[in-house]
């Protein structure tokens, strides 16, 4: 018998102003598994992710997290779901460490400074952790945003092209880290264009398309990515 999904998406139609950007999506994500999303630019991957985490209202269909309709206004939902979408926004007068501490303390992490120090090291930001965001490179800001997802507890992690703006080494480290977290029970949903990242992390892949959205194996997805 299949495990009940932590995230259940049924007949979800997403878009703007009532116009769907892709075919309806139906997929379930079991706890401790990772679902990848692929599709060409503009296919609707980011829109699907934003709707799944409640930032956009669905045109039709439902999204349930842990058996309840998604409502990002609920503290319980925000406690359980970490997101790193396409935001590149930071408080200009807070350092990198302060951003991470704010996130950790906001989630009631007891040993916040210790956890933040570890993630700063893990994401290669040790030298720049006390710099203001304006003094960080684009890639370093991306690392900072990603680190924020790991300084806090979460049951579901939603990432939009996490490999974006990262160097090859950091991409591999991040993929290995996420795969390890999935093995430890974290559920991950992410969009990606990187075949290596996809094959390292994903157990199943949702192909987002205009005609039909279907779930395929990572192998088939990687083949599709290589085929362009």
């Amino acid at each position: 018998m299949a495990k009940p999904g932590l995230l259940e998406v049924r007949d979800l139609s997403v878009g703007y102003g009532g116009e769907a950007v892709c075919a309806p999506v139906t997929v379930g994500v079991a706890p401790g598994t990772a679902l990848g999303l692929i599709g060409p630019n503009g296919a609707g991957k980011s829109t699907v992710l934003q709707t799944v985490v409640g930032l956009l209202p669905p045109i039709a269909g439902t999204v349930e997290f842990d058996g309840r309709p998604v409502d990002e206004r609920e503290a319980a939902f925000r406690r359980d779901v970490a997101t790193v979408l396409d935001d590149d926004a930071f408080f200009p007068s807070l350092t990198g460490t302060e951003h991470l501490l704010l996130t950790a303390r906001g989630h009631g992490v007891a040993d916040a400074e210790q956890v933040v120090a570890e993630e700063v090291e893990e994401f290669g930001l040790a030298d720049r952790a006390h710099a203001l965001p304006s003094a960080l490179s684009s890639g370093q800001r991306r690392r900072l945003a990603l680190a924020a997802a790991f300084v806090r507890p979460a049951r579901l992690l939603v990432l939009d092209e996490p490999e974006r703006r990262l160097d090859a080494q950091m991409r591999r480290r991040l993929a290995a880290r996420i795969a390890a977290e999935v093995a430890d029970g974290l559920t991950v949903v992410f969009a990606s264009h990187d075949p290596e990242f996809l094959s390292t992390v994903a157990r199943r892949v949702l192909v987002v398309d205009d005609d039909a959205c279907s779930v395929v194996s990572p192998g088939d997805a990687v083949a599709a990515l290589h085929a362009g």
Partner: protein
Amino acid sequence: MSGTAELTGVGVRRFTRRATARRADTSWLTLGGDVLSALTTAGVVVAVLGGAFSALRGRIAARPPAPATDLPGELTAAVAALVVAAGVVALLSRLGPLSATPAAAAWWLPLPADRRGLLRGDLQRVGAVAVVSAVVVALPVVLAAPAAPTVAEAAVTVLAAALLALTAVGVLVLLQARALTGWVAPVAGSLATAAVVVPAVLGTVGPAGPAPTWAPTAPDLPLPVLGGVPLLVAAVALLAADRVGGRVPAGALRERGTAVLVASVSALSLDTRELGRALGTPVHPPRRARRWARVRTPWQAVVAGDLAVTTRSPWRWGQLAIGTALPVLAARTDGLGGVPALVAVAVVAGWSLAAVALGEPARQAHGAPAADRLLPLGARDVVRARAVVPLAGLMVVCAVSAGLVGLGWEWAALGAATAPAWAGAAVRGGYRPELDWSGPVLSSPMGAVPTGVAVTLVRGLDLGVLGTVPLVAGLLLGAVPPLLLGVALGWSLLLGLVAVETARRTGP
């Protein structure tokens, strides 16, 4: 990860504020100086406004014979207050009232902290802005009252306006939490348009002579009821707003916060074009797409496209109506109408508003220059073609407006003769280059003035104002001699030509 108490919304705000303050270089002395400076400025503004309105009251007492109905000054002041209030309400609904900057949306809203506590600071800020706006709006109404108001009367009126503003903020937040603010800005815009157009029309078609004095008066009720009820309503609205603040979706907060950020940056950098884009309401696609069946030449394509851009937004119609009626309202107002300089100011204000509305296609073309290169038309010809719609529109606006100001066909002809200059101004303003902050700085009593920026900002308006000089001469003369009409037409055509030919620097 072991757990401890999560930060509350207030705690998150405090953490951010303290971290920011640690590296801020603003001392209490500096803050005190800034507060003192703001209070002094406010005092000077109130004194100047009071002096101006007192002087106007004196003029009204010795008013000249009126050609049509004289609208009481206090009515026009109330219209001005209503227009500003409608503008503030529309602005608040466009920008929130509650919003989260991109940084707050990325780092605050995903936290499990109570959103109500996170947004309370924003609610307080918006409330303060509304109160200040209400005071500024209420002052002219109080000071324009036929009898000089006592300090107590002025204070009560201003307080009532402030409470009304706080109630409006509360109601807007309640609507925002239910995603129901979409109708607010269009209704406020319609109200503002009607508030300007209706008195202008009534003042023109009504019987000649002064209209009866009009002033808003408070109902004859006991003071506790009179003061207590608005206070109670405002308090209830704000408490309800605070309660539902946490129910506003993150997506809406982030979208409004981005608009606030772009608008703030644009306002600080004096980039009015970007400010307009940030505050503009999205235009909905038409039910039926245009087929352009009658378009045969590139010129017609430009004109047809411009016509679609101009007529598709209801805001443009409102701007054109206000632009037409504003000079008429000033001319019909008791006291104002007898002062040609004030009527001229209203003419320039109204017609520049109409020129801005009709310059929208040029502004959009400047933002997307590739669109201009799609047609087999030289760059200069595209700009010339882009003057057709503004010319047609301003012919109507200027002719109707001037005709009703002077109440005669010769005035309408003078207005129409001025239209080419304003059409040129619309195109020239639309193709205005980006602001140039590198120019020399001019020392002035108000501080340093960056001349490059100032020259760019008045681009368009400059030639429109010059083109209005013959009409101002007519207002001073109180008549339109045929010679003046001929001079106005020639002068306006010359300026319009210069404006269009210099609107955009073309490549080699």
